[in-house]
C-alpha cells in the first residue's frame, strides 16, 4: 500500500454539516468519497448554540424521521428576550405557524448530531478517515489534485476537493480563495454552558407544557454589556444551553474575559432562577464568521470548492448557518457529480456550484444582509439603549403608583429621549431597515 497512490473521486475536508452532506450526495451517486476529519470521530470538534432547521435536513434525507435523528426538543416558542440590568421584556411567539408540522427547527447538540449525520453519509457509501489533519494541497499543472495530511505517507488524491474546514479557514486562505485572515470586526466569539436540569424543572421554569416543547431565544441588551453581541437560550431535552457572543473587536476593546461575561449573564436576576441547582455538563467556545457576503471567499477554483463556515455562510441576524452549510454541501456534492460526468474539473465546470447557490436562499439572503454586520457593529444602541428603554417603558406602562397618565407618558418619552435624540432614533430605524432590506 505504501507506494500506491491513495485515490478517491472526491475528497471532503471536515465531517461537519457541510462536509458530511457533500459526501452523502456524491456517494449516493456512486462516487468514491473520502471525508477527512481531524477529530477522533465526526462531531468531536463541533459546537454551536443552537437549533437546526428541519427544511435543510429533510432536503438531504426525505425519510429523515424514519432514521431517528438525535435531535433534542422541537422549537415551539421562539423570539427575543430584552434584558435590562435587573429586568426583562419578553417578545416570543408560540403556537400558530411555529407549531405546524413539520416543526421548523429543533434544538440539537452538535457532537451527537454531527456524529449521526456523518453515519448517514457512511451509509450512502462515503469513507470516513478520522484523526487526520489536512495540512496542504497537491497541485498538478496549477490545478488542485489532492491533499497532504499529518499522517506518514498520508497524501490523498482526488480530482475534486470540497473544503468544509470550518470558521478557521486556513486551507481556504492557503488556496488563495481569500487574501486575508478573519478580521476582528467580522467574527464573534460565542461561549456557552450546557447546564443539566430535569425535564420537569425545565418545563416548570420556562412554562413549557411537555418535553415535546422547547425554546430558542435570542437575548438582547444587558447580556452583552453594550458590546455588539447577543445572548441565547436553547432547551435540550434534559439541559439548557446558555451562551453569549460578542465580536472579537469588542473583546479587544474592552479586554473582558469571555467566561466572566457569560457568568454575569448566568447570574442575571431574570436568568439565575431558570438554572438554579443545575449542573455544568459542558463549557465551550467557538468563532462565528459574521462578515457574511462581504467576507466570502471565492467559492471555487480548479479542482476545489469551499462550503459552510469556511465560506462565511452565516446570517448573523437570523442565526442561520447550519442550513446554509447543508444546502451548500449538497450543491458542492452535485457539482462534483457533474464534473465527474464531464470528466472536467476545471474552475469553469466547478463554477456551477456558485450558480446553483445563487438560485437558493443562501446567496440571496447573504447578499440582502450584506450590510448587517457593519450595521450592528456601528449601532451599539440596539444592544444597550433600546432594550433598556423597552424595559423602562413597559415597566412604567404597567404600573400605577397613583400617577396621572399624562405624567406616565412623559416619563416614558423622557426615558427614550434622555438616552438618544429623536432624530437619532429615526436615523437608527431607517438604517436598520436598510440593512434588513439590503438597499
Amino acid at each position, binding site marked *: 500500500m505504501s507506494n500506491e497512490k491513495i485515490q478517491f473521486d472526491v475528497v471532503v475536508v471536515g465531517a461537519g454539516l457541510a462536509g458530511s452532506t457533500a459526501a452523502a450526495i456524491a456517494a449516493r451517486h456512486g462516487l468514491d468519497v473520502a471525508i477527512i476529519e481531524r*477529530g*477522533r470521530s465526526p462531531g*468531536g*470538534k463541533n459546537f454551536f448554540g443552537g437549533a437546526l432547521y428541519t427544511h435543510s435536513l429533510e432536503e438531504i434525507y426525505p425519510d429523515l424521521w424514519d432514521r431517528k435523528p438525535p435531535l433534542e426538543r422541537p422549537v415551539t416558542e421562539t423570539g427575543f428576550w430584552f434584558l435590562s440590568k435587573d429586568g426583562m421584556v419578553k417578545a416570543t411567539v408560540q403556537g400558530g405557524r411555529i407549531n405546524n408540522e413539520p416543526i421548523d427547527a429543533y434544538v440539537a447538540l452538535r457532537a451527537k448530531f454531527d456524529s449521526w449525520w456523518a453515519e448517514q453519509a457512511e451509509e450512502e457509501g462515503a469513507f470516513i478517515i478520522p484523526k487526520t*489533519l489536512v495540512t496542504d494541497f497537491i497541485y498538478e499543472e496549477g490545478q488542485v489534485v489532492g491533499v497532504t495530511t499529518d499522517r506518514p505517507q498520508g497524501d490523498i488524491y482526488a480530482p475534486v476537493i470540497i473544503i468544509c474546514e470550518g470558521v478557521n479557514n486556513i486551507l481556504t486562505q492557503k488556496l488563495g480563495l481569500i487574501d486575508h485572515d*478573519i478580521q476582528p470586526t467580522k467574527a464573534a466569539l460565542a461561549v456557552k454552558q450546557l447546564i443539566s436540569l430535569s425535564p420537569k424543572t425545565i418545563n416548570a421554569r420556562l412554562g413549557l407544557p411537555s418535553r415535546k416543547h422547547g425554546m430558542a431565544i435570542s437575548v438582547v441588551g444587558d447580556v452583552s454589556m453594550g458590546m455588539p453581541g447577543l445572548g441565547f437560550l436553547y432547551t435540550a431535552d434534559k439541559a439548557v444551553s446558555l451562551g453569549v457572543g460578542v465580536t*472579537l473587536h469588542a473583546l479587544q476593546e474592552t479586554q473582558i474575559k469571555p467566561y466572566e461575561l457569560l457568568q454575569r449573564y448566568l447570574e442575571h436576576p431574570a436568568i439565575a432562577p431558570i438554572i438554579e441547582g443545575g449542573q455544568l455538563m459542558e463549557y465551550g467556545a467557538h468563532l462565528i464568521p459574521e462578515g457574511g457576503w462581504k467576507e466570502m471567499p471565492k467559492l471555487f477554483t480548479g479542482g476545489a470548492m469551499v462550503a459552510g463556515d469556511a465560506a462565511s455562510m452565516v446570517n448573523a441576524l437570523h442565526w442561520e448557518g447550519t442550513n446554509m452549510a447543508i444546502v451548500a454541501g449538497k450543491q458542492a456534492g452535485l457539482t462534483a457529480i457533474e464534473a465527474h460526468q464531464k470528466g472536467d474539473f476545471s474552475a469553469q465546470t466547478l463554477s456551477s456550484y456558485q450558480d446553483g447557490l445563487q438560485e437558493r436562499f443562501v446567496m440571496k439572503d447573504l447578499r440582502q444582509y450584506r450590510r448587517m454586520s457593519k450595521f450592528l457593529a456601528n449601532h451599539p444602541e440596539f444592544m444597550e439603549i433600546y432594550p433598556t428603554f423597552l424595559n423602562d417603558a413597559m415597566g412604567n406602562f404597567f404600573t400605577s403608583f397613583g400617577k396621572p397618565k399624562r405624567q406616565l407618558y412623559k416619563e416614558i418619552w423622557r426615558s427614550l429621549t434622555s438616552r438618544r435624540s429623536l432624530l437619532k432614533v429615526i436615523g437608527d430605524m431607517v438604517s436598520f431597515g436598510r440593512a434588513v432590506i439590503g438597499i
Partner: protein
Amino acid sequence: MDKKNKVNREDLPEVYIDDILMSLKYYTDEHEFHLEIIDPKVCQQCVDKPCIDFCPVGCYRAQDGDTVQIAVQSCIECGTCRILCPYFNISWKYPRGGFGVNYKFG
C-alpha cells in the same frame, strides 16, 4: 483611545476557569505543541497582554510579571488568539489529528 472604561469591569463576577474546564474532555498531545509564542521578547514588551483576557479558556497566563506562558492542554482550538494577538506573535496550528478538545455534547 482608552475604551476599556466603556464596560464596567467591577460588574463582572470572578470566575475560576479551571473549574469550568473540568467539564471538557481533552486528548493531550505530549509530543507536539500546536500553539507557540514566536518571540517571547515581543510579549515582554506588550503592555496590555490582551491574550490573558480574550482567551475563552484562559490558556495565556502572565509569568513573573512580563512573560507569557501558554497552557496548551486547555486550548479548544477556537482561533481567537491568532486573530487578536496585537503583534501576531502566536504560531497557531490545529493539533495533530485525533488530539485536542473532544466535545461530548457540542
